[in-house]
Structures are given as structure tokens and as C-alpha cells.
């Protein structure tokens, strides 16, 4: 099958909150859930940065500005799988992950809570590798005759990796129920998108492998949901994989160890500030009377309270026991590993 290069940028709500396309069919309930996770996600990210500054958290990659990623997970069922990176925490929350899990991860604890039941795997750190895993999951789903799908998410930088292309190719050759989502936030740390690729859209990679490519306003959560939903339906129906590029921007630093003023201009940041995904969605929800001002306030209070509880639970979380280091290498620790344990930790 030959797909053309995509040209349209999918959008439902413009930066001012105006409806400029057909919205996806979502119940008020679903809308509020999406909105909640975006609001919560932003607060959570800001709190993570604060915790890091206080030395109570390891390196963290804020996702402020990229909250429309909620729409990557909202079209998924619990038995679908989602495999992303450190930048996809909100999508993971929507998929069912407890916010405590990535807090543990970033504190340097084991990454527990990303379970098979939730269709989740710990946040990927090695850029691009998870795209192949997602294809493998999709191939397994297809093999088992389910109508499940697997979504792999990565950044613009990841599209330069060999694994990204091998993933597209395997997915295309096996017509796996796989959706590749690229959160193109314009930078890979300091390296701008133009240095990653000589083409304007990363979505072009899809058709070169026989996969349809979509370009989406990645700050428009309804457009994200709608396009991913369409791809999910195609995949469930056995019509193969898709590639979705979300055009977005991280408003903050790459991680708590990064200084973005070294490589970005204030104007550029201001340009994107005006395209805030939460503000835009909020206007839409208010105008459509899906949400009232009072409900919005209540929702914010709820998120604040939820976050507070989260942080408290986090602070109470026991650190891993050093012994655990030796327990999870293999299902059964071999004798020489136990000997090393005793040598290092002192005979028990």
C-alpha cells in the first residue's frame, strides 16, 4: 500500500479555544477526565521539579507544555499497551499508572507499578528502544488474535535512531496493530528539530515504510485524541500500523539538569506560551458548557489535594532494601550472586 506524505495539520481547537474541526465523540465525563489529568499532570511536574530542587528527587524531565499527550492514552482500553519515555508520564496516568510509580522511578527506586495488567512497561530511558518493544507487543497481540493495540511513544530526537526505523519497518511488514507517536517538542535537549532531520515533518517517515503518517497540533488534546483514536480503530480492525507526529513544545528545561536559555530564544518560548494546551482546552470546555467555572475550580482543588496526598505517600515510601539489588537479576539468584551479596552487605 502506498500512502502519500501527509500535508494536513490536524486540529480541532485553535490556540484561542475556537472550534476549527469536528471534535471527537467524548462524553462530558471523558472530557473532564482528560482535562483533570492535564491539570494534575502540570501540577505534578512542577512539584517534581520542586522536590528535585529540595534534593528529594533525582533528575526529572518536566513535561509542562506537553499536557495534550493525555490524548495519546485516552483512546486506549486497559488491555491495550502503552510504551513511552520519561516525558510521557501524563499519558501513563491516563492509562492507569499511579503517579507514585514515576516518583519512585525518579527517586532511584525500582520502577514498580508499571504492570502487565495496565499494559505498561517502565518509562524508557534509552532513546528509541521502546518503539521495537511496542511493535513486539503488537505482534504478540495479533498472534493471539485479540483486537488489542500497542502504542509506542518517543520524542523528535528518537526519530534519528536506527531502532525507530526498524520498528516502523517491522510494524509495516507484519501489519502489526501498532501506533507510533512522536512527541515532537522541537528539541532533543539542545539540538533543534532542524538538526535532527532535513525534512519538515517527521511524519514523512511513515509512508516511506508503507505506514500512513499524520501531523497533529500536539497542543490540541482533542486533535491528539481524535487522530490516535482513528489509528487505534484501524489497528483493531487489522488495518495495520500508523505514525502520528504531535507538534508541541516543552516549556521548561529538558531536565532539572538543563539550562534551556543556552539554546532557545525568549521569543520562541513566548510563541509557544500562547499555544498552551490547557488554557485552550479550558476555553473550549467552558464555551461548550462541559465545564463551569465553579467545576473548574473544584477540579483544580481536587488535583491539588490529590497531589498533596501523592507527595505524602511518596515521602512515606520505604527505600529499596540493598538486598533487593540481588533479588531481581534472575528469578532465582544463583549461588555466586548470593555470595557476592553476603560479601558486600555482610553475612546475614
Amino acid at each position, binding site marked *: 500500500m502506498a500512502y502519500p506524505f501527509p500535508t494536513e495539520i490536524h486540529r480541532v481547537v485553535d490556540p484561542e479555544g475556537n472550534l476549527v474541526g469536528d471534535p471527537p465523540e467524548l462524553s462530558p465525563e471523558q472530557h473532564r477526565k482528560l482535562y483533570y489529568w492535564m491539570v494534575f499532570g502540570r501540577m505534578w511536574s512542577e512539584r517534581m521539579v520542586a522536590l528535585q530542587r529540595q534534593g528529594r528527587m533525582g533528575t526529572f524531565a518536566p513535561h509542562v507544555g506537553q499536557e495534550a499527550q493525555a490524548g495519546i492514552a485516552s483512546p486506549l482500553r486497559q488491555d491495550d*499497551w502503552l*510504551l513511552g519515555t520519561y516525558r510521557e508520564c501524563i499519558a501513563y496516568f491516563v492509562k492507569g499508572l499511579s503517579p507514585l510509580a514515576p516518583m519512585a522511578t525518579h527517586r532511584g*527506586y*525500582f*520502577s*514498580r*507499578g*508499571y*504492570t*502487565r495488567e495496565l499494559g505498561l*512497561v*517502565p518509562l524508557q530511558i*534509552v532513546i528509541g*528502544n521502546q*518503539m*521495537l*518493544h*511496542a*511493535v*513486539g*507487543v*503488537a*505482534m*504478540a*497481540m495479533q*498472534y493471539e488474535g485479540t483486537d488489542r493495540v*500497542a502504542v509506542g511513544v518517543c520524542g523528535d530526537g528518537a526519530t534519528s535512531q*536506527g*531502532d525507530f526505523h*526498524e*520498528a516502523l*519497518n*517491522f510494524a509495516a*511488514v507484519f501489519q502489526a496493530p501498532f501506533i507510533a507517536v512522536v512527541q515532537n517538542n522541537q528539541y532533543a535537549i539542545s539540538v533543534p528539530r532542524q538538526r535532527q532531520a532535513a525534512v519538515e515533518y517527521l511524519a514523512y517517515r511513515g509512508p516511506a515504510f508503507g505506514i500512513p503518517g499524520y501531523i497533529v497540533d500536539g497542543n490540541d488534546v482533542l486533535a491528539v485524541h481524535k487522530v490516535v483514536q482513528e489509528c487505534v480503530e484501524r489497528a483493531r480492525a487489522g488495518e495495520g500500523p500508523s505514525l502520528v507526529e504531535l507538534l508541541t513544545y516543552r516549556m521548561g528545561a529538558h531536565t532539572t539538569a538543563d539550562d534551556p536559555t543556552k539554546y532557545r530564544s525568549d521569543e520562541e518560548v513566548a510563541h509557544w506560551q500562547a499555544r498552551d494546551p490547557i488554557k485552550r482546552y479550558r476555553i473550549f470546555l467552558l464555551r461548550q458548557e462541559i465545564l463551569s467555572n465553579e467545576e473548574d475550580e473544584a477540579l483544580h482543588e481536587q488535583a491539588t489535594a490529590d497531589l498533596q496526598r501523592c507527595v505524602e505517600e511518596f515521602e512515606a515510601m520505604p527505600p*529499596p532494601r540493598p538486598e*533487593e539489588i540481588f*533479588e*531481581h*537479576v*534472575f*528469578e532465582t539468584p*544463583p*549461588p*555466586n*550472586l548470593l*555470595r557476592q551479596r553476603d560479601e558486600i552487605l555482610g553475612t546475614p
Partner: protein
Amino acid sequence: MPKWTMVQAINQALALELEQDRRVRIFGEDVGRNGGVFRVTDGLQERFGEDRVFDTPLAEAGIIGVAVGMALYGLRPVAEIQFAGFAHLAFHQVAAQAARLRYRSGGEHHVPLVIRAPFGGGVRTPELHSDSVEAFYAHAEGIKVVIPSGPYEAKGLLHAAIQDPDPVFFLEHMKLYRSLREEVPEERYTIPLMEARVVQPGNDLTAIAYGALLHTTLAAARQVEKEDGVSIEVIDLRTVHPLDEETVVASVNRTGRALVVHEDSRAASIAAEVIAVINERALYALLKPVRRVTCPDTPFPLPAVEDVIVPHQERIVRALRETLEP
């Protein structure tokens, strides 16, 4: 019992696994229609269908990467890398992904994946085809590395590997594929991983080897036994990581002399590790330095001179005699 080559024994083991466990799928380059470049998967696609045994695009990272995904989801992938040296292209997917997903998830996930790959000298292959890779994966931590020394061993170990809940790199020495036949039971049996085997007991020296060189080592040991009237214990490591230290240490503590033989180069190798373990746990018993008879610290020797460089019986005999000197 039928007399089988190692190719047949592995083929049979794979067939049994496909038969009894629908989660098992076999894939890689040329494993389907062609039955593998060494015919190890011959007939399996015909018999079990394209769903169970299939060819992939030519991409090693792709093969291992999707295998990791399948294993995470709950299947039991058996991925073939056409020659072990080409697994270098998937090193990140093995060392940073397959080998550590159990660990990073605190035991919540695991990767029951078997990677099979041929390797080994003596077959005059083009470069990188013959390379030994076991030390790389031994050091990767989180993956077991298994190297059978013949048909019977291969079948039992492969069943155990496929049944193992964690990733296993299963390395098949090409020279063993058809060079010897052994009685192999037709039914399923397992040989436990991480247990070395005392191939022949002895009192004066412990010779430690694995894979094809086990046989050269055995031949050398028997020659020296016969000509010099000594008795040599020969151990087949079988799983080269994690090591069965107990078997090695117990033997050396008894014999007081040891020799380690492998085809891999020597720096930071399995032989180095075995010697380190002997040093740690049997030093006081040692009467002589433990010799390493291995390939040198060069890339695998050119086919034209590999017979001179790859450990051969004469060199092992020499090293045995030197180590047996009072």
C-alpha cells in the same frame, strides 16, 4: 535411541517446544522458508505454520527488540541471530533491555527470551561469523549464557533455556553442528542451567572447557593421561555465566592444578573469570599457575591461519604438561 547431530537435536527440541507451548515462536533471518542457513529450523515452518516460525527483515536490533516486546507481553520467543557476531547490532537491546527489565521493574516484568546463534572457528567463515561473544554477554549481567558441547547437551539445555523465565543467550558452535552424533532421547528432557558437568573424573589436574573445545581438551587430556600416566578431570562449564563455581572450586581444591580452554580471546574473558574464582576460592590448593589456552587478544584469526591460532590439541597438551610439572 536415534543417533543425532547437534543440528538435528536442536531442531527436535524446537519442534517439541512448538508442539507443547503455543507461546513459543521462532523467528529470525532465513529461519522460515529456508529452514536456517544451517538447516537448524528445517521443516519447522512447514509443520507449524508461518505464525509460529517466520522470517523477519534483516535487522538484528529489530529482531531482539520485538522479541523483548513479545516476551514482556507473555510469549516465549526464540529468536535466531544468524551468526553470533551480528548480535553486536542488537547489543543495546540485549544488554540494556532484555537483561535488565526484571531488575528495573523490581521483578514486576520479566523477559523469557532465548536468543540462539551459531559461532565458532574451524569452518573458514568470512570475518565476524566465527567470533566468540560469550564474554560480552556474561558481563552484561541479567542474561545467562549457555554453550552446549554436543547433541545430547544441546537438546536438554535448550529445553531448559526456553523454559527459563529469564533471557538466555544460547550459543551453538558451528563445528559441532554435524561433526558428531550422539544418542538423544526423542522425548523432552532438561539439563539444568548453571550446573557444570564433570565429563571425566581425575586427580592430578582440572581442565575446564566448553563448546567445541571441550572435545579437543578431552582428546588432549586423554593423550597426556595415556602418555604420562596421570589422571585429569575434565569439566564442561555448559553455562558460562553465571558460573557454577562450586564444581570448579571443588575440583581444583582436590587436584591443585587447572587449565582453562576456550576459543574466545583472553582479555576479560570467561577464562579470566574462572581463574579469578579459582584464585578467590582455591588459591591455597594451587600448585602451579592456571594456564589459559585461548585465542590471543586479536580479532578472530583470519581463516587462512585459524588452525594455527585457535587452540588445538597439541597446544593444550603442551599446556597440560607444563601445568603438571612438579
